[in-house]
């Protein structure tokens, strides 16, 4: 695998590789800080492919996964990442928590803090909720998705997947397609990919395109075929069923006809274009099954694999200060 690093992504001399207490988003990260996390993740990709997948650098630390919004794969990925690093991992599901009894988010944060968590991973349905908690606790906070705002580890795992497949991110033409408006995955990916020098296009029906999206340094398309033209990477987003009952889109069959990724459509993209999806997929709605299952073209299972490695890297890096790692204390 190539390790070519874009020029803009080299850590400047004297700069700390990652001077952030929390990871609430890609926003605010320097290109070389993103690259640093990707580089750190490489060792965990290797470890995770061994029969013994254990490292105990987080032994004795408590990792709380506070998930206020239902999740299976992201929660599992963070849990596996923490356990492989030796942390004591505790999952808090909103459905079982006092949040349902009307406790405020701040009170919940104070409670988690009083239990002396060493790192808190948070998913919440409201944009900005993770920052709100991060401001109130003493330990590092990792955003596992907040509303429509950011999902930074998803963007990191996507960047790592592209880098490993394509060698570099610089000048890669990446088309992000689907429900951009409601997607934290799209926002974090736009920030990460543009920071690393990729040329990013977003493709969506006009009803699912955020206002002024071009101000984020991307080119918007409402015509799927035009947006796909020459793309090196095609990143499909999940479209939730409730958006396809007439409110935003007339029907799922019309959506598939206009914005679904099929083999014929993919011909428009560059030869060998990589197909990605953050999951879970709606087969036959945004992506045809034969594409999703094509191991040559689809990187979808690889994304899941990279997810664990990237989350291990983030957990390791964010806890270095409290572990007294040299250069981080």
């Amino acid at each position, binding site marked *: 695998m190539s390790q070519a690093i874009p020029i803009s992504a080299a850590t400047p001399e004297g700069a700390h590789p990652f001077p952030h207490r929390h990871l609430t988003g890609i*926003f605010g990260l320097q290109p070389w800080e993103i690259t640093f996390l990707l580089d750190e993740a490489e060792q965990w990709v290797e470890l995770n492919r061994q029969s013994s997948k254990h490292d105990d650098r987080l032994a004795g630390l408590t990792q709380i996964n506070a998930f206020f919004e239902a999740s299976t794969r992201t929660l599992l990925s963070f849990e596996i990442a923490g356990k492989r690093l030796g942390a004591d991992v505790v999952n808090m599901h909103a459905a079982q928590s006092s949040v349902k009894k009307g406790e*405020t*988010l*701040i009170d919940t944060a104070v409670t988690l803090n009083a239990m002396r968590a060493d790192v808190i991973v948070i998913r*919440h349905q*409201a*944009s*900005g*909720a993770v*920052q*709100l908690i991060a401001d109130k606790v003493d330990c590092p906070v990792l955003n596992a998705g*907040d*509303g*429509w*705002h*950011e999902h930074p580890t998803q963007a990191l795992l996507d960047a790592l997947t592209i880098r490993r497949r394509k060698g570099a991110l610089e000048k890669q033409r990446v088309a992000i397609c689907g429900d951009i408006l409601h997607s*934290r995955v799209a*926002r974090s990916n736009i920030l990460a990919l543009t920071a690393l020098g990729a040329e990013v296009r977003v493709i969506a029906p006009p009803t699912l395109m*955020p*206002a*002024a*999206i071009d*101000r*984020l340094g991307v080119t918007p398309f409402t015509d799927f075929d035009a947006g796909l033209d020459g793309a090196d990477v095609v990143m499909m987003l999940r479209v939730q069923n409730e958006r396809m009952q007439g409110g935003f889109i007339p029907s799922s069959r019309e959506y598939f006809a206009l914005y679904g990724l099929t083999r014929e459509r993919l011909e428009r993209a560059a030869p060998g274009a990589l197909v990605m999806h953050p999951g879970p997929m709606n087969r036959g709605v945004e992506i045809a099954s034969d594409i999703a299952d094509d191991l040559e073209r689809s990187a979808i299972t690889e994304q899941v694999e990279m997810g664990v490695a990237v989350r291990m890297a983030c957990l390791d890096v964010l806890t270095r200060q409290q572990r007294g790692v040299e250069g981080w204390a």
Partner: protein
Amino acid sequence: MNPLTITGGTLVDPVGGSVLPGDIACADGKIVDSAPDSAKSIDAGGLHVAPGIVDLGCFAIDIPAFAAGGITRVALMPDQSPAIDEPAMVQHAAAAGKPTVWVHPLAAATQALNGEELTEIGLMQRAGAVAVSTGRQRIADSGLMHRLLSYAAALDLMVITHAEDEGLSRHAVATDGETATRLGLPSGPAISEAMAIARDVMLAEDTGAHVHFRTVTTARGFDLIREAKARGVHISCGITPGHLLLCDVDIGAYRTFAKLSPPLRSAEDRDAALVALADGTIDVICSGHDPQGPEAKRLPYADAEPGMSGAETLLTLSLGLVRDGHIDMARLFALLSRNPATLLGVDGGAMSAGSAADLVIFDADAPWRVDTMNMASSAGNTPFDELPVQGKVVHTIKGGQSVDRPPS
């Protein structure tokens, strides 16, 4: 009531449009030509003396904040708990501020502000309501709004409405644009406001009713108001310092204190508001005073309540508009006092003998810093926290009597 003489002031007269050195005398709650020698005297020492502020559309009776802000009359929004939707509620609310501040309750246009059934606005008028208000939202049903305006016109009651189209703004907590997109906040297009204004301008024209748009914030909205006024339609509009001085960028990283209603607009719309202020399109500057505690504001942005605690910074922030040359001092007090008093049909905003002796004495240059932790208001939810400002109220005088000095 003890007579009072204020000497050595710089008198701001929004009626005559003058700002001149002079003395002013008060007796029996009114401004008089001269007070007896026994009158108590205040030496203004060159400070400005102006008519007390008439704040058109506050959500809470917050007497310390009003006193600190030089506010002597307040039109209280009907969005109380329960809503001001019957005569007894009007009488009760009207007594709440005396003697420090006179509260003029606005009658809810619909029962419990549900937007569906009209209230007894005629009886509420007799009980002391000076105008009718649709509350935090407009009335979505155009037919009902048409009937309300016809009915209110016959009673010569002004109808104060909110200008946002509910279809475009129901789930919106911000205005469409780069900031909302970056933050991932539900947003609506700025034309939501102009669409609401367009409808109500037509209804006002058709019924002859006087419609006041409490807070207008967009270029398209001001264009419609300007054009309708030129055509002779009986409409007026207001704005808050928050909407004149801030734009959506000021939401920053989910600062819920900057969550207002209507939401903060683009910088271009904010600039259009300054133009509309200077050219006379805007009639009123009001505080929109809406104190909210942490239980309503320390929440994720979309879940937090809108509104700012604005009474005690209303004059200070507005004085910045004079310093920056957008308007002159006399025009400022037309916007803060004379115009709202005239719209509501209450005594105020004048410096001539026979007018209410409601006055504010202020030092237009005194520097201070806004501090949410140290406010006279019952809550410190201001987006202007830590802003260095100039202009401080020294005395608020209601009916010729000095109200307790605000904390310095």
